[in-house]
């Protein structure tokens, strides 16, 4: 079974996303910020990362750039998931190594559709 790391400082968002992604047959690992997420990736590289932008300690963009520099860090498919949904932010996320982008708020249909776009389901 594939693993998805959900990185968001909101416990509610993590819980909602986890429930949807579990239904897509993923194991779930959670992190509350970029630093925790990087630690989790160093322990075991996930197949997918659902990534918030604005978080304390280390934000999503800094995490993504750091992840892509790690050994094996190019492997996870990263789906940004942010309220920052103007073209400039989206392009910056893609340039930094994101594979897809979800504009919050999202629902199960959007999440599944975006995971399908990158071949995760």
């Amino acid at each position, binding site marked *: 079974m594939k693993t998805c790391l959900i990185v968001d400082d909101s416990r509610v968002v993590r819980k909602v996303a986890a429930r949807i992604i579990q239904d897509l047959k993923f194991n779930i690992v959670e992190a509350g910020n970029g630093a925790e997420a990087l630690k989790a990736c160093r322990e075991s590289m996930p197949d997918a990362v659902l990534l918030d932008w604005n978080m304390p300690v280390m934000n999503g963009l800094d995490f993504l750039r750091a992840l892509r520099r790690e050994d094996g860090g190019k492997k996870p498919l990263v789906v940004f998931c942010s309220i920052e949904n103007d073209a400039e932010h989206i392009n910056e996320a893609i340039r930094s190594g994101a594979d897809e*982008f979800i*504009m919050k*708020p999202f*629902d199960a*249909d*959007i999440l599944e*559709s975006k995971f399908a*776009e990158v071949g995760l389901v």
Partner: protein
Amino acid sequence: MKDEVFNELADLALKGSGQSIPKSKAYLIEARLAPIARREGFGTMEDLVHCVKSRANPAFISEIAATLVSKDTRFFRERDTLQRVLTDVLPERLKATNTGRLKIWLAGGSTGQEAYSLAILLEDELPPALRGAKIEILSTDICKVTTENARMGRYGHYDVQKGLSIHRLTKHFNRLETGQWEASEALRSHISFRQHNLLESAAGLGKFDVIICRNVLPGMARSARVRVVESLASQLVPGGLVLLGQGEGLIGLTNKLEPARDFRGAWVAAGTANAAASAA
């Protein structure tokens, strides 16, 4: 909703658009007609039906019938079929026509997502065999408002995230200050939009190489399905094909179309499937 109110509205849908709405879906009638009821100041569906019965207004009745039709659609629905139209069907048709012109009709195209999906494929993945061809897409819908919305090509947050990758969204759509995303001029240049009731003659629309009519027929009464299918068949150029949605069949409905060989979900004029296969 009272039975007599439901029956009046279901009858109006059947006559106006061929839709067969079962009583178990009375909630759909209420949901779809609520904006009209609000606009016209009707407190209940009963008031709306009373108005329809007491002063016959054909334009208002048509609007109600059109509003009751499902608008369910999304970008790149049944993507493989669209892809195959681009890579196999259109090049074959182009070879057969020698006019350099190909026409596609999205019958029941709703808010335009399928038409824009095809236009995106024409922009991003045009096969060499189609270079220089003039490919025209016509999207029609029974509802005037839906047709206008499709023509504007503006989509909300939820619509653009279903079936459309972020790369295609940022490449082909511009974000407006309202938060909506608007299709680019390049996409719009491939498509024309027109209001059209599939129960009426389509002769004025011209002939088409490919007619795509998906998720329209299943909601219709049998008699309406027959009428629509025969109308679609009569708008095909020789050698053209009709594409239906997954799981939609025509067996027993018409003898004017037969399944195309080697293309599941595609239908060709009766008597031509074998000829087309041997020519290929």
